[in-house]
């Protein structure tokens, strides 16, 4: 292929140069190309990063928001995030603490700690601990289960919608499906939780993102990131003193 054939034509003249077949060796060319290919393959990024959109309340409007939260006590879920690190500052584990509605803060005189609630409704406000766990054969675990149960009304409607979409002969397009899912998750006639996420200063960024992610997974439309305040640290420390297996109390 890379040769040029030359026919021997005519008689050989005296002193005529010996005819050679011209043959170009492509091996070095291939070598060089391979090197270049490997360079490009190693230096390219095929996978683009994903982004997660966050909107925070503006600093001035914070007071108003707190008022609206109080009004919808029964739907509120407050989440605290903590992270345990090893000696090299690598994340060992993330823990999620949560309570529903208003926190239960009645102090037991004998111990000086928050006591045991006497009624069902008050027990909602007791701080509990969970972990981030992924699904076990399609069954929710950990904090995902807690949030799933709180948002069960919305999620069951989404499940119905999914069934409708997957039914043979269904005409529903993907766009229509996502639009309807959004509609359901924002439907104010169904009871939906309001999740308030408060990360302790030491909580890892990963735990914050994982929590925001759980909101997406559980189709929770109302959630916000808030600052971890003094009241929160009192509640959390009380829990950590009683349950030392979840880590050291905060400073």
């Amino acid at each position: 292929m890379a040769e040029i054939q030359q026919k021997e034509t005519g008689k050989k003249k005296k002193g005529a140069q010996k005819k050679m077949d011209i043959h170009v060796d492509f091996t070095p060319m291939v070598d060089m190309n391979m090197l270049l290919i490997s360079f490009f393959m190693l230096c390219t990024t095929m996978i683009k990063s994903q982004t997660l959109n966050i909107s925070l309340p503006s600093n001035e409007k914070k007071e108003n928001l707190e008022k609206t939260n109080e009004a919808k006590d029964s739907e509120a879920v407050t989440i605290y995030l903590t992270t345990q690190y090893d000696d090299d500052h690598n994340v060992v584990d993330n823990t999620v603490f949560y309570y529903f509605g208003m926190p239960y803060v009645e102090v037991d005189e004998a111990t000086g700690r928050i006591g045991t609630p006497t009624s069902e409704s008050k027990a909602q406000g007791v701080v509990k601990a969970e972990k981030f766990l992924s699904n076990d054969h399609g069954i929710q675990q950990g904090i995902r289960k807690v949030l799933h149960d709180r948002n069960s009304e919305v999620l069951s409607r989404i499940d119905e919608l999914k069934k409708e979409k997957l039914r043979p002969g269904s005409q529903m397009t993907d766009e229509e499906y996502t639009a309807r899912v959004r509609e359901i998750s924002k439907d104010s006639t169904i009871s939906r939780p309001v999740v308030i996420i408060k990360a302790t200063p030491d909580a890892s960024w990963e735990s914050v993102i994982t929590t925001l992610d759980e909101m997406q997974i559980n189709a929770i439309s109302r959630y916000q990131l808030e600052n971890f305040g003094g009241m929160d640290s009192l509640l959390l420390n009380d829990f950590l003193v009683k349950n030392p297996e979840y880590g050291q109390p905060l400073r």
Partner: protein
Amino acid sequence: MGKVKMKRKSTRIDMTAMSDVTVLLLTFFMLTSTFLQKEPVTVVTPASVSEIKVPDTDVVNVLVSPKGNVFVGATGSIAAGDDGVFWSTDTLRRVALQLAVSDFNAKTGKRVQLTEPMIEEFAKMNMFGVPIERIPDFFAKNSGDRDDWLSGKNVGQGPLADVKETEVGIPLTPISYTDQEGPKETNEFQIWMRAYHNAGSDMLTKAMKSGKGIAVKADHNSAYETVHDVLDNLQTIHMNRFSVMTSLKNLETE
């Protein structure tokens, strides 16, 4: 028995076809590749199920290192916007640098002078994190040393030797100033973000307003406190919609 005549075959393999294939592959990789952007600190982003891709154009990237150093960089458009003005990355960075420095000078009363070569060099930088007051010192360094310095290597050498490793990046220390409405507080990070916002690129301003134009990238191991400092500053300047960079997590495989 008759002798079997072995025909001598040439061992030469024709490489032309092979070369054709490699050239094709090479062309493919050259055309599809987007190079890894050089970043001062390598961060591992946390995973999320979000499927929104990070935009290539009209975005201000905020990088928060695990130690809390903040870097800011911006990418311009690749085509003219609705108003017919084309803001390339180069132009955007040039204008933003001048805006940021003049804003800083106005608010602190300091006189930081920029020269044309500095602006030229700045426009080539993907991520920037130097206290504004020290910009001339920073560009007095060799170009190789600059990247090292930003990534926290050889910090105690040459110009800027007095800046500690923890002070690399854009400082979040408050700057007090007074304008017509009375005493106010800002910091260099806010100055930079405002500079990019006000640079004049219509597309970027819109993107920043909608939240797509601000991408915060932080390491999954860094404490919330460090990231929160940046988020809090964004909130203060009413950029409370933004996106955070994550890597892809597949829900089904969990």
